[in-house]
């Protein structure tokens, strides 16, 4: 368990991490087991702030090492939460790249996906439309990050990117300029 669901919608959920500095990477894949259903999400943004939601953390103008020695307590007053867009779900052994009928329940544990799971999800390029339409408004950035995460796991990353790029182009209504902005950020080759 790396986090716990604290907010849930049909298209995305928010989870608070167990440790404030142990956060799944932007564009990485996470999962939540909700009964018989396993919901997969793609991390689409994160926020770290004061544990007390009403106040902001103060600036101390010291290095992190100095702070850890002099004021170790302040770190335990921090919390991190991240959002993840729902990519699809697994039920009865079948993966579906669309939203589950019911959004996830709160307080369920969130885990990182294994490489095998990411491979399975990414075989179908359906997740790209979710990342593109990310409610956070950073769709292009998220899509590129997700592609970076996914492509290196495939045997032939270039081939994978070619196919995904073609699908993406259709999703973008053949807007090559936008495709370019996404693909240029996938610099894994």
């Amino acid at each position, binding site marked *: 368990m790396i986090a716990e669901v604290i907010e849930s919608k049909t298209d995305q959920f928010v989870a608070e991490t167990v440790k404030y500095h142990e956060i799944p990477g932007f564009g990485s894949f996470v999962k939540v087991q909700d009964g018989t259903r396993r919901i997969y999400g793609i991390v689409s943004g994160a926020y770290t702030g004061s544990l007390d939601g009403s106040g902001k953390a103060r600036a101390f103008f010291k290095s992190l090492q100095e702070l850890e020695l002099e004021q170790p307590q302040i770190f335990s007053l921090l919390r991190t939460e991240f959002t993840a867009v729902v990519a699809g779900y697994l039920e009865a052994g079948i993966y579906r790249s669309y939203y589950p009928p019911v959004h996830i329940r709160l307080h369920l544990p969130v885990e990182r996906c294994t490489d095998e799971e990411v491979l399975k999800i990414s075989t179908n390029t359906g997740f790209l439309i979710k990342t593109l339409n990310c409610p956070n408004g950073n769709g292009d950035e998220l899509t590129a990050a997700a592609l970076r995460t996914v492509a290196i796991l495939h045997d032939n990353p270039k081939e994978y990117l070619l196919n995904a*790029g073609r699908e993406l182009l259709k999703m973008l209504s053949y807007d090559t300029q936008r495709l370019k902005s996404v693909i240029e950020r996938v610099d894994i080759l």
Partner: protein
Amino acid sequence: MKGTILRGSLSGGFDIRLDIGEEIEKIKVGTFCIVEGRTYDFLAMVMDEDIEAANPKAIYETSHTSSLLNEIVKGTGILDKVKIQPMLAIDREDGRVMPVKSIPSHLSKVREAAENDVFAVFGNPDDTNFHIGYPLDMEHIPVCINLERFIERSNGIFGKSGTGKTFYTRIMLCGMIKSGLCNTLVFDMHSEYGWEGKDEDKTRKKAKGLKQLFGAEVAIFTLDPESSRRRGVRPDYVVEIPYRSIDAEDIAMVWEELNLNQTALEVIFVLQKHFAADWLFKFLNMPASEILSFAEETGSHSGALQALQRKLIKLQKLPFIKENPVDDAVERIMQYIDNGMNVVLEFGHQRSMLAYMLVANILTRRIHELYVMRSEKALSNETIVNTPLVIVIEEAHKFLNRETGRQSIFGMIAREMRKNNVTLLVVDQRPSEIDSEVLSQLGTKIIALLTEEKDIDSVLSGANHAKMLKNVLATLDTKQQALILGHAVPMPVVIRTRTYGEDFYNDMQTGNTKISGFKGNVNKRATESGNNVQGKDFEDLMKELYGT
């Protein structure tokens, strides 16, 4: 070639979107492809190719520095498109070949035509289904031309000079002679059909003539025995034309060569009316005083008569025009033709347009008259054999231009089609000069590369999908490639013609037209349609003959 139907119409052809990974560079205009519809396979021809962007901006925006991006966009955002025109529909269940009357639906699959597809349409070579060449990029599939249909109408072989018109003509002549379906009469202006001709191929140098290939089936007539002898040809007959057989119409045909004006032509008809058959000889030998009295008598202008006489003296310089020749050339030609032979008339050094047109016109006019009589007789008496005659003329635009084409005997033959069993094979490099009415009557056209816009337009006028074929025509190679369309082929086809060399000679001489290289199944469809009887093997024939 693999792709799917993107859009299109029956009249305008279809756009094919090539599958990703297909190389448009490898697809040549003029090649065949198959559109796999639900019920029919559509045999289509590639007419044009182009590049289209789903989003027009894409063409300009794609970065050349990112190869990945370029690869993604190629085939999705920017499409390689091939324009095709369906020519025939083949019923997948019973193999029937029929004209296209419906269109395949969107996303129907398109693939390269396989051997069997082409074979099913053009059939197996035999004596009447003459193997003339190969489809582009399918060098082992014979494309056949149906000779029975070919000789039903007048036909044309066109192409600018140096594209091999003479070779196509030779090949077609060989096919016709070998089939025995018709007799041929060739007005051989440059003396290249009868005996050896020049071959521009450096390894072969010489091309065999018809006499060398078919021996006794071909007779060489000559207008210039000296020239024939110098070339080592032993002509069967030396043609001499009597003055008596030259008609006013024959002179009218060569008015340009003799530099005659309209008044002169009118005077000629007056002369013929006055002196009957001997008009030319009498007029040429008429002293000045007689010309004056003749002018007075007929109300003609004496100056015009004298000028005409001076111009007609050119005819006296033609050595083959004689006052009293020993023999009648026309009768002799008919005799040979009646014996089932084919006649090649060599002009030797007499290759001026004047000599060529005059002789061709005189002989054809009389031969045509005989054929008209004969076909009338054949109508009443079924036992009379009336083998069709194909007359080959070169520089056809001189005979069939707008001014003379309509009245001349050649225009008449072209228009009346097979009625009297005489048809033309016109060979020409300027089809735009030929009367459009005559052009439209030509049944089958074999067209090599033409570059003049006017020529292309006129040669394709009246053809289905002319606009698209224009593109095909403009992309032909200068040698050994031709577009065949019309009556004798089921659909227009671009071919690489057979090489007029040893293999071809052997085929012509052995009587076996089966293609040695092709081992495909003899297609059921083709054999069932009746125009495709495969020749017997040599061994089978031997067994039949000798029972061993």
